[in-house]
């Protein structure tokens, strides 16, 4: 059983956070809210999302599992105007999702969850450094790095206590330092890892610029980025495996 009403903004944020990594996903319809976990085909980037029942106008579920085509669902969400509510009801018999937006009724065929890539195990990582910054600062770092390179190094300087971004291109380089004053919070620890911008750019797209983002980093370790949405009732965690640093 699944019946829910949610605002178009909340639904769109949810879907966009996932669709930067995969085209199809499984959605767990738990009593307390939605859970989605997905990993990209190359097993490099992962997303773990939860959306509490409180984020919905109304929410009823009893632990079902559905598979959806994200772009299809995004198209449907795009039919709603800002502020409109979207109503869902799962037909268990036909395995179809009935979606209503104002007068518009849409019946969405679901995908067999078994045909979707297995959900990843979440690595249990001990990441010594933590950086809390505004979405727009992360966005600026990624955009600057992308101008010169296809990779980005993220690290923390333990001595002078700042977070830095390095990007080395064939000809041009980018370097950016954010001190405690520029950051919301900084927990110093040994951290420097190299990441592919192909992935980081996509993840960055889903991070609102006015949101507080926490980055957890280590040495040659994956990065963990988490942020809230839907007024704190939704949480997204991205995890991205590093590239080996050649020098």
């Amino acid at each position, binding site marked *: 059983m699944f019946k829910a009403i949610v605002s178009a903004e909340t639904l769109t944020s949810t879907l966009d956070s996932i669709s930067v990594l995969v*085209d199809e996903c499984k959605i767990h319809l738990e009593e307390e809210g939605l859970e989605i976990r997905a*990993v*990209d*085909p*190359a*097993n*490099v*980037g*992962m997303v773990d999302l939860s959306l509490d029942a409180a984020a919905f106008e109304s929410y009823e579920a009893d632990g079902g599992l559905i598979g959806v*085509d994200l*772009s299809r669902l995004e198209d449907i969400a795009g039919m709603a105007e800002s502020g409109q509510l979207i109503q869902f009801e799962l037909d268990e018999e036909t395995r179809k999702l009935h979606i209503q937006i104002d007068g518009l009724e849409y019946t969405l065929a679901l995908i067999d969850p078994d045909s979707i890539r297995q959900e*990843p*195990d*979440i*690595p*249990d*990582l001990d990441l010594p450094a933590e950086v809390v910054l505004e979405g727009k600062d992360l966005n600026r770092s990624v955009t600057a790095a992308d101008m010169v*390179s*296809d*990779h980005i190094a993220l690290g923390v300087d333990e001595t002078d206590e700042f977070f830095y971004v390095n990007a*080395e*291109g*064939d000809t041009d380089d980018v370097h950016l330092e954010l001190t405690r004053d520029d950051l919301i919070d900084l927990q110093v620890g040994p951290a420097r890892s190299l990441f*592919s911008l*192909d992935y980081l750019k996509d993840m960055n797209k889903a991070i609102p610029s006015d949101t507080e983002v926490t980055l957890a980093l280590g040495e040659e*370790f*994956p990065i963990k980025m988490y942020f809230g949405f839907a007024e704190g009732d939704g949480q997204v965690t991205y*995890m991205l*495996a*590093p*590239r*080996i640093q*050649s020098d």
Partner: protein
Amino acid sequence: MEFATFADRAAEIEAEPADLETVDHVRALFEESTGEIPEEDGADLERGDDELEIVARYVQGRVFPAWESTTLDIGPSSCYEAIARAAGTNVGPADVEDRLAELGEIGDVAASYEYGGQRGLGAFTGDAGGNALTVREVDETLRDLAAADGSGSADRKIDLLFGLFNQCSNEEARYLARLVLSEMRIGVGEGTVRDAIAAAFEVPTERVERALQVSNDYGRVARVARDEGLEGLDAMDLEVGRPVQAMLAQTGTVTGALEEWEEAAVEWKYDGARVQLHYDPDGIEASNAETRVFSRNMEDVTTALPEVVEFAEETLEVPVILDGEVVAVDGDGSPLPFQEVLKRFRRKHDIAKAREDVTVRPVFFDCLHAEGTDYLESPLTERHDQLVELLAEADEPDSDSLDEIRGLSLLWRTDDPDEIESIDAEALESGHEGIMLKDPNSAYSPGRRGKHWRKRKPDVETLDCVVTGAEWGEGRRATFLGTFELSVRNGDSGDSLETVGKVATGITDEKLADLTELLEPHVQTEEGQRVELEPAVVFEVGYEEIQSSPTYSSGYALRFPRFRSVRHDKDPADADSLERIERIRDE
């Protein structure tokens, strides 16, 4: 089997120049790709879980069996991008293309980069042991890649391929890139795989060959040969819905065909495109259709050719596989050129509209399967009888004229060259390409360009002959001159002309009207239907060969002469000479 092992073996095969040793390498690879035979109890590995099927396809650079219409649908530029992304810092598709221009081959380019720079998350979850890429993992990923469709699928394909390259060594990358772009080129052809299957699993080559012909699936034949032996191979049959390679023709002459076979089966050669029709009134397995139509390359062209589907569903009542051509016709049913058919084949959208412009009509000349029986091994004449029965039964059961049966290509059996000539003439007059000559007793050999089917050779050479006589036609053609007498110059002076034959073939009614207008002013004498013409007009004439003949004053006759064109630019003095005829004949 690790993909690295496959890559190593592929490199050994590529380096081997000798055919026999190549077969031996492939045989060894097949044996190596066979998994451990499961213990009697406890083991959950089935033999089908091993990688023989995949390897048997990969050595030929095929990801899917030939009959399957699935493709990876990934272009070179996407492959370059995946390589670039996996290759390291700041390598872009442009670098890959630069190296390709320099090295000339994608395998060398792929092998020239270092991979593995991007780590996977699995390395941090603790469950990743020795995670070497296996052949099966490559295959599963390539199948996912092929299945990706819809918006964003191009990016998803690149992501998947990037993931594979990222796990590759240089040598693995070489063969992965070639496999993805269908450029394996390690010197393994279909014959090599056939011989290797026979050698590895101790079954006769010709039985492997037969199984390959009916199934078009090298992987499956290899597995059946190993697991079920000869009995299994012999039990493999045609399946309605799975295309067979088309039997092909070589060029030949009427004289040659009659010499070898004594009697020839003669069919019109249609200026169309080859199609294979698969029909099952109860629906074709693994598809929700009753009818599927395949092109000569075994591509599914069903949706592009609704006329063929309609024909099948209206005409046929039992499961069949038929071989034929589709021809394009205009509003009056007259054939249109081949290009018009091709336009329809390539059409993916607005088929109803395309159909209004050009209609296609199927004509079938062979029957490979009917009602559960395969006819590949039956003689041509028996297959044709079967075809007549299939099409006649449902069409006009009491029709006593074969040519009233829709969709049937007629077949004549004859040992008389003159009859063949008149069939040829009729075919050309009806706007078709000419005739096919077939050995009436031959079996259907899929994929073979054998001696049993011959396209009548297009004229090798032409002669420019002076028209020295003609005959008034009969009936519909009573007001036209036809059957033109041809002559060549004798000696340099060009004063005397000697006859070499008569041409009545290859001329449409319209053309006859033009020719009559052109020649009538030159009529010197008339005697009954026969007229003598003042030497003035030169014809370009094609022919099959030159024979000695007492009938004509030159002492020679053109065999199967055909009208090609009027040489308005030539006078009789420029026409070909008897000397040239003698020279050609001596060659």
